[in-house]
């Protein structure tokens, strides 16, 4: 039906970078200043942001190398080649569970934050359900179209962030920022770990490299895709501490949204900017969730080739929704998130790195 050439259905290096940035910038960015302020207790958290960015980049570089070894092959296919078929099944299934839980986390986060900033009476269940339906609709369409949405929404999100930062510049007090370099390395490392949770997402390189026009560009895409969040996190952390001081930031649930709350647009055209800020933010959380659900489905269809995408969406959605509804309160919710990301450390970082080493040692390589 389509007159498009194959080349247009593949994604470029920059597009992949934007995908990584979009999937990383999600809920984490709204909460990380709290974790960081709690760990370091000072402005020095910026060192942690850079440090964890570097670690993420090294891991991401290795993941990209692994995926680039096997161009046009799915995660399941190359794990099967490297470490036998049964291991491939187990690993892919684990990844599916992990990515699916991530969708649950994102949609529940939407529900929680909307409840806090936008609604008074609407139940979380309905907010979450409507969001899940939209994510389903996106994933049901073509994959390249879903990825193109990142290109559309990420700039909008940047514009909003830029506006918020512009209007909070006058509220930054230099007193809040001082003293510099007061934290010891132990707390900095703790902060690094905390921010590291907010960087999770770049592992999509493992699954989307097969769509890249030139899979060897993967490492560069990782560099671009992580540079954007690192810079964004740095700026936001500086502003949060500058405006609130570390002491206050510790006790704010969503410090980044609270930052938007401080904005006063001259002329009083809008009030309560944080609602608008979060409304726009829904777009990037949408991108993150759509990509996670899509990755779950890529992996499932690569294992069970006979079941179609639509069937998987229909099977997965109730499970995703059910898991999303499990946490009873915010504390539950955040501990769920932490456990999820820690298990991700093993499933999508550690194991693929081991796989890369195995592939290197055994000398297995995919073919174009």
């Amino acid at each position, binding site marked *: *039906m389509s*007159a498009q*050439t194959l080349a247009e259905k593949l994604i470029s290096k920059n597009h992949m970078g934007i995908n990584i940035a979009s999937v990383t910038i999600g809920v984490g960015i709204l909460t990380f200043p709290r974790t960081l302020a709690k760990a370091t207790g000072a402005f020095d958290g910026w060192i942690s942001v850079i440090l964890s960015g570097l670690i993420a980049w090294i891991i991401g570089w290795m993941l990209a190398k692994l995926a680039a070894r096997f161009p046009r092959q799915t995660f399941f296919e190359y794990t099967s080649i490297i470490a036998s078929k049964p291991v491939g099944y187990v690993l892919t299934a684990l990844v599916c569970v992990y990515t699916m839980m991530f969708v649950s986390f994102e949609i529940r986060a939407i529900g929680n934050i909307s409840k806090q900033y936008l609604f008074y009476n*609407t139940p979380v269940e309905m907010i979450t359900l409507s969001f899940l339906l939209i994510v389903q609709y996106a994933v049901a*369409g073509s994959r390249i179209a879903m990825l*193109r949405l990142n*290109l559309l929404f990420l700039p909008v999100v940047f514009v909003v962030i830029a506006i918020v930062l512009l209007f909070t510049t006058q509220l930054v007090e230099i007193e809040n920022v001082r003293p510099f370099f007061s934290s010891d390395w132990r707390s900095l490392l703790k902060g690094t770990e905390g921010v590291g949770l907010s960087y999770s997402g770049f592992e999509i390189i493992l699954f989307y490299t097969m769509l890249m026009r030139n899979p060897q560009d993967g490492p560069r895409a990782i560099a671009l895709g992580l540079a954007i969040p690192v810079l964004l996190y740095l700026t936001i952390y500086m502003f949060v501490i500058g405006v609130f001081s570390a002491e206050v930031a510790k006790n704010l649930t969503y410090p980044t949204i609270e930052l938007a709350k401080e904005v006063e647009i001259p002329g009083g055209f809008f*009030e309560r900017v944080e*609602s608008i800020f979060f*409304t726009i933010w829904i777009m990037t959380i949408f991108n993150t969730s759509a990509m996670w659900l899509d990755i779950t489905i890529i992996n499932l269809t690569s294992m069970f080739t006979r079941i179609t995408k639509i069937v998987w969406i229909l099977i997965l959605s109730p499970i995703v929704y059910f898991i999303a509804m499990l946490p009873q309160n915010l504390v539950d919710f955040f501990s769920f998130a932490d456990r999820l990301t820690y298990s991700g450390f093993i499933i999508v970082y550690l194991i693929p790195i081991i796989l890369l080493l195995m592939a290197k040692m055994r000398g297995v390589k995919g073919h174009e």
Partner: protein
Amino acid sequence: MLRRFLTTRRKKKTSSPFIKKALQQQSPPVLLSTRLQENMETIKTELGAPHDLLIRSLLIGNTRHMCAIVAIDGLVNSDMLHDQVLSHIQLMISMAGKSVPDEPQTILGLLYEEVLSVSELNKSSNLIDIIDCVLSGDIALFVDGASEVIIIDSKGWKTRATEEPVSEGVVRGPRDGFTENIRDNTVRIRRRVKDKNLRFDGSYVGVRSKTALIIAYIDSIVDPEMLNEVKRRIATIDIDEVEESGFVEQWIEDDFLSPFPQIHNTERPDKVAAALFQGRVAILLDGTPMVLILPITIGLLLHSPEDYYDRWIAGTLARLLRYLAAFLAVFSPAFYIALVTFHPGLIPSDLAFSIAATRDGVPFPAFVESLMMVTTMELLQEAGLRLPKPIGQTVGIVGGLVIGDAAVSAGIVSPVMVIVVALTAIASFAIPSYPLAIAFRMLRFLAMFAAAIFGIYGVVLTFIMIMIHLTNLTSIGYPYLAPFTPQMPQDWKDLILRAPITFLRKRPGSLHPKDETRTRTGDST
């Protein structure tokens, strides 16, 4: 006339009975006889001797042979019929010293080669073809005893004079528009595109209506893959009658569930010429001034030819305004509902109080209020379209009174609602493409429902949903949102901005033109 139908698209499955029926209708063999009288009888029975059938038998010059002219009165150019055909046949006595031969077939050859001073002549011996030609405005010349018939091209019926396109007015730009006559329309394109590579591929659609269809493109620019796809889709058209280009459009479009138009229609020749130069394809259909342009993008639908005729600053500002209009046309009532119902805190307090004060006494929730007003507006718009101009104004006055004043004084709606509805209406009139404006009107209701349920959150979800749909949508396989996504920064000079004309050195890359540059020096900027 048989159309192959190659696609597996669902709606085509229903089409095979049409072909069978048509075949049965044409099946009794009608053969051309050498006897003139017999032929005339066959034609009369085939056509049912209609009132406008013109049959004139006469002697050829000073020979003893009869001939007959068959035509449809009104379809042929009668001056030509008299001056170039009838009088020449009657005066065919002897030419250049040669005596007139006696053999019918030789006479026919002589008529064909020497006597008739008409530019386009053909011979045919297939009676069905001959009847088709007569029905489309040609003259058939039968010679008694000959086994062939001369077809004289003499189409010349009365057409309306060209007028300024009603649906697409411009302040600056050419005033001519297409007409219902396909030949006039090709002339209008040809006069603007004097490139030797301009192609008009003709065919017919409609098993019964046999409407002429022309695919126009510039061969050295257009992407051959696109052209093949267009031709393939047109070949699948299998329908009895095609009255308007809308039939073709709906048959070949990519997604019939989408509210968005995937093929553009215009009655401006300058727009079609510009599209051809960009590497697009145009489809002209006989009997309608609406010419189809494809493939299109949403950007193209929000552009007007005037953007290029005015200086670039004016063009750019007009475009910015239209993108804003598109946004307002879909979302302004939804925002009103969301703000009043769910988030009065978002509005500055003073304004919130004054809105609340004006809404005091309005018995309906904001959603019902908006629904009533927006529906009234749709009604007025629909009513105004169909009515003759003098009454149309009355509708405007009545509508203005009802919407503007009476409804407010009666306490049914609040004054702010009136402002919102007026803003929405004006915004949707600012969209240059009428089908796109219709799509936005539909989506407006969707956004209003979402806002009524989920407030501003619902509005954003609607926005995301529309975007998902648009990224998935294609026009003849080419992405609808190009060059926004897939991103083609080289095309952004002519998207929301309209860069100075000297900067626009490349054709839209999303169309994969064979010849990429518009200037001879190439892209030197």
